[in-house]
């Protein structure tokens, strides 16, 4: 069974190596990448079933016993994150294969994409703080290449911001690991859980806050979010979509993992709640000020991160369960929104609200896909966003944190407002761009996009609908994940034996 834990990391890396060998054979590269990712999705599904039946799964790499060797460990939280992110990665790969120019003239796209997948999988499965750093670096090194792939001027400019801020965060992460090691003499997270509890309170707070800053930069929480809306929109659309869906969530995952396992609390954390409030408000206000679909959605990434931190900040089973469900819904929804934006861009050549218009008549399918994903993001019942937000809000009310819950409801309304702004600008109305208007008047009523691109987007929106449809069972699993996070004794016992 334990081989299941290794495959999500090893398979994509192996496939990446093979894809490099097939440097100029694009079709072979595609088959390798698709095969590897389909296998990883199946593996993640088996892993989820195994965790559901038998509890936490773990394996010691190289058979070195726990505090010394590298541990891979998957609990319910990791298993949920793993399956939804691998499904998302797979559908974006199909989309990228379908998009003209996304992978054709880029021999390195498939290898680098697979390496990024391996890095994401490793971040979700590792049980070792330093190995988490390595996982981050694998993911980031691949993402640096992906975000600058093509080498256009604005890509280089924003890619530079992205690389520098992430390299700075990585350096701080090494410093944080050094301090943790100096204080405890171990980097194994299960081992740390016991040893950090014995440290003086001040040292614990310092380590906790330092790691929060490190992961906060990666997760783009207030006040460390400014790099994100600046750098994400310039990449190719499949790349932006997968970054939007996954990379910040890896940061949030790390915040949740470290704050619950290493620095457990028994009451709502004021600093997390304040960060959450500002993240939500500033993200959504930033979105309202923008006039471009990609940039609006990029600011919404920041805003939605606030909800995740809010649920964690409550430090109750209900709150963390809401957060787990919310991340589970957010990964496919956010990615699907960017993929529909890509469809708009592919058929009109622009994503500026002022240039595009009247898309509902020409591409009704894209309009429907956007509407479903956007309403889900805003949290309209019965879509999946509603269930996640409801869980977090109920937890907040029962914890008596009324102020922050009020803020989150207002932010929800503003989210709906900016989604309507996109809807009115892009799908209703008329295009200002004369060439687009000409195309419409000449009877070209539908703008075609490649079948694979549409298919992948439909599939991913289907996933978000499935999350809404099976909200009950998934929320049960999220609750079990939250119980495992707030009472990590099973996790620690499994790792240390």
């Amino acid at each position, binding site marked *: 069974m334990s081989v299941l834990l290794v495959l999500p990391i090893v398979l994509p890396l192996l496939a990446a190596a093979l894809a490099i060998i097939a440097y100029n054979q694009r079709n072979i590269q595609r088959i390798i990448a698709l095969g590897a990712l389909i296998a990883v999705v199946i593996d993640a599904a088996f892993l989820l079933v195994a965790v559901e039946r038998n509890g936490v799964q773990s394996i010691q790499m190289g058979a070195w016993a726990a505090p*010394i060797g590298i541990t891979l460990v998957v609990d319910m939280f990791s298993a949920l994150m793993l399956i939804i992110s691998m499904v998302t990665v797979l559908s974006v790969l199909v989309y990228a294969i379908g998009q003209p120019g996304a992978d054709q003239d880029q021999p390195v796209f498939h290898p680098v994409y697979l390496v990024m997948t391996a890095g994401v999988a490793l971040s979700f499965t590792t049980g070792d703080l*330093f190995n988490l*750093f*390595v996982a981050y*670096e694998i993911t*980031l*090194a691949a993402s*640096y*290449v992906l975000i*600058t792939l093509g*080498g256009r*001027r*604005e890509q*280089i*400019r*924003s*890619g*530079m*911001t992205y*690389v*520098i801020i992430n*390299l*700075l965060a*990585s*350096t*701080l992460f*090494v*410093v944080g*690991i*050094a*301090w943790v*090691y*100096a204080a405890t003499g171990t*980097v194994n997270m299960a081992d740390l859980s016991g040893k950090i509890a014995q440290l003086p309170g001040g040292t614990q707070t310092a380590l906790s806050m330092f790691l929060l800053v490190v992961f906060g930069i990666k997760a783009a929480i207030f006040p460390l979010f400014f790099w994100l809306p*600046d750098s994400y929109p310039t990449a190719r659309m499949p790349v932006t979509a997968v970054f939007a869906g996954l990379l910040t969530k890896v940061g949030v995952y790390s915040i949740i993992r470290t704050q619950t396992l290493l620095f457990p609390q028994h009451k709502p954390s004021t600093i997390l709640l304040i960060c959450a409030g500002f993240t939500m408000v500033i993200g959504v206000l930033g979105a309202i*000020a*923008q*006039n*471009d679909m990609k*940039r609006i959605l990029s600011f919404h990434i920041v805003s939605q991160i606030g909800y995740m931190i809010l649920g964690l900040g409550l430090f109750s089973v209900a709150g963390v369960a809401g957060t787990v469900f919310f991340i589970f819904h957010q990964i496919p929804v956010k990615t699907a929104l960017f993929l529909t934006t890509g469809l708009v861009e592919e058929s009109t050549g622009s994503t500026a609200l002022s240039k595009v218009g009247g898309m509902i008549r020409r591409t009704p399918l894209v309009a429907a896909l956007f509407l479903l994903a956007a309403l889900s993001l805003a949290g309209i019942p019965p879509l999946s966003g509603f269930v996640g937000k409801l869980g977090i809000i109920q937890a907040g009310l029962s914890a008596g944190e009324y102020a922050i819950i009020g803020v989150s409801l207002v932010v929800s309304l503003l989210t709906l407002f900016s989604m309507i702004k996109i809807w009115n600008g892009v799908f209703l109305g008329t295009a200002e761009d004369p060439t687009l208007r000409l195309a419409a008047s000449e009877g070209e009523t539908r703008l075609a996009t490649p079948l694979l691109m549409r298919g992948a987007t439909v599939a991913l929106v289907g996933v978000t609908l499935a999350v809404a449809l099976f909200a009950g069972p998934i929320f049960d699993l999220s609750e079990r994940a939250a119980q495992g996070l707030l009472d990590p004794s099973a996790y620690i016992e499994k790792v240390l034996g």
Partner: protein
Amino acid sequence: MSFFSALIVAVLFAVGVYLLLQRTLSRIILGLALMGHSANLLLMVVGGRAGKSAIIGTIGSQDTVADPLPQALALTAIVISFGIIAFLLALAYRSWVLTEDDEVEDDLEDARIAQLGEAEMRRWWSRPK
């Protein structure tokens, strides 16, 4: 010994931060490289006193052996930062080829939004009262 190592860590980090806050790319990259060195050195410092290499068979008494784990961590971190700095230098070269300048550019979209905001403010102040 350990004090001087710690001092070097602090000085490297301070110089790194100073360079990072500059406006030219080459300085920013040098600053990041220095901060990376500082972090790696810190990993060595937290490993405690220097000692014999921890190779099975040559170990005498327990307390004369250096802690090998931070050394392994530092080695990994050095390799990673080496690769990323090389990539960053390539990126900076590409930026120089495209813009013929070493400065970090402003974000055009941000500047545009800021201009819109300012224009809005001016209209609001000069509105008929």
